[in-house]
């Protein structure tokens, strides 16, 4: 059994069926890229994985433990969703940093909130707070922004904001880190720094799912690529298989269009 298993995920909005039965699995430490044209359902899939949308049908499990089952979990309690959601981290297309907090505080806010919910002695809280802060510094170093710790989001470039957002998502040590078109909202000259950070995470064996339009990135960084079209997985394979030797005509057409040079 694979580390992360998704089976038969379906999701409709009104009468529009956006996901028509998605199955895939992912090994620990591997990177999965999801490509496809807009409207193919890739963002919805990612949102389902992060419990921002509730699939109508399907199951998900991590490490053999079922974290979502549409047939049972219709009325899943908020606390349960919160607990399960923490298996995942999500980096948004539009960063969504909290504007009133510094880069550093953006990273520590959620972990510190979790601390207040646990029943701990004053001494334990002190120790854990220090741990959270130390980790935040570590993460800022990882994304190359230790000198911007005290900057507010509005004082940072888009690329820097996205790197802070990556650090923020990592602060809760998710099992799987998801990216929703992390460079789509960035100026072309800023995409490189973000992609480099994501690439560097690969070596620290995080499991990642990246929805992206950056074909070069998908080709070079992922272990596995999924091409989605019309709410289904049209084709799945290693980057070599999918990019060099696409089997589906839809994949071929999409790749031709995406790699077209002007």
């Amino acid at each position: 059994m694979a580390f992360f298993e998704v089976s038969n995920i379906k999701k409709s909005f009104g009468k529009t069926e956006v996901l028509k039965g998605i199955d895939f699995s992912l090994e620990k430490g591997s990177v999965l890229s999801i490509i496809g044209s807009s409207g193919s359902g890739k963002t919805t899939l990612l949102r389902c994985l992060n419990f921002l949308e509730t699939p109508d049908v399907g199951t998900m499990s991590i490490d053999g433990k079922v974290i979502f089952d549409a047939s049972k979990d219709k009325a899943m309690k908020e606390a349960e969703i919160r607990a399960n959601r923490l298996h995942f981290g999500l980096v948004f297309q539009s960063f969504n940093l909290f504007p009133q907090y510094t880069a550093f505080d953006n990273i520590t806010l959620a972990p510190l909130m979790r601390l207040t919910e646990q029943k701990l002695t004053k001494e334990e809280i002190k120790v854990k707070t220090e741990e959270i802060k130390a980790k935040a510094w570590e993460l800022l170093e990882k994304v190359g922004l230790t000198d911007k710790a005290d900057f507010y989001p509005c004082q940072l470039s888009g690329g820097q904001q996205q790197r802070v957002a990556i650090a923020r998502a990592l602060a809760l040590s998710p099992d799987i880190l998801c990216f929703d078109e992390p460079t789509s909202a960035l100026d072309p000259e800023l995409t490189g720094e973000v992609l480099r950070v994501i690439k560097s995470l690969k070596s620290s064996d995080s499991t990642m799912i990246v929805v992206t339009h950056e074909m070069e990135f998908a080709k070079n960084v992922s272990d596995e690529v999924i091409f989605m079209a019309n709410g289904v997985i049209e084709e799945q394979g290693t980057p070599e298989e999918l990019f060099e030797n696409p089997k589906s005509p839809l994949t071929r057409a999409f790749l031709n269009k995406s790699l077209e040079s002007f």
Partner: protein
Amino acid sequence: MALFFNVTLQLLEGLLYTLLIFGVTLLVALPLGLLIAFGSKSKIKIISAITRAFVWVIRGTPLMLQIIFFLFLPTSFSNIMQSIGIPVDLALRGEVALLTMVCVAFSINYACYFSEIYRGGIQSVPQGQYEAAQVLGMTKSQTFSKVIFLQVVKRIVAPMSNEIITLVKDTALASVVIRLDLFTVAKGIVNTKAILWPIFYAGLFYLLINGLLTILLGKLEKKLGYFKV
């Protein structure tokens, strides 16, 4: 000179009552308005319907009418109760009781106006902020208090300032019940002494208070200027 001194003293006393109504109303209406805003946004249909209807009535009728309504509510209620044989007497007697009822009317009226400002402010916070907090495992109340609230405050300082300044001047409406506020006192002097200037003198008091408020609210706006929403 003695007249000027005398008028100043009377106006200062009026100012005190004006500030009292203003302060109490602000203190009650600011949190109450947020509560009403939550009510009108509630997912429970019956709560949101009742809240919206209430806001509609309050915003759709003159404040003076509402003051009169709240003034006679206890008396009418007592009368009805007594007519069916239940001995209740809630009729308002004395300055304190009247002033309290005036403050109730003002607080409810302003809370409804504030609630609409809050609602606009809450709605203007992008969905992405809620989702970011959600995927970080924060609860709804943590999300509101730690992420959303300050962004709402920043967005509503300007429209709130408007309402707050209007409130200072609206206190003159209390005169239908109790003739103690700044404007009514000034008008009283004009009538009894047959001189006009005290009313303009009172205007200076209003200007002073609102000038002070403008500076304070401007400071708050500046203080929240360190981040952009």
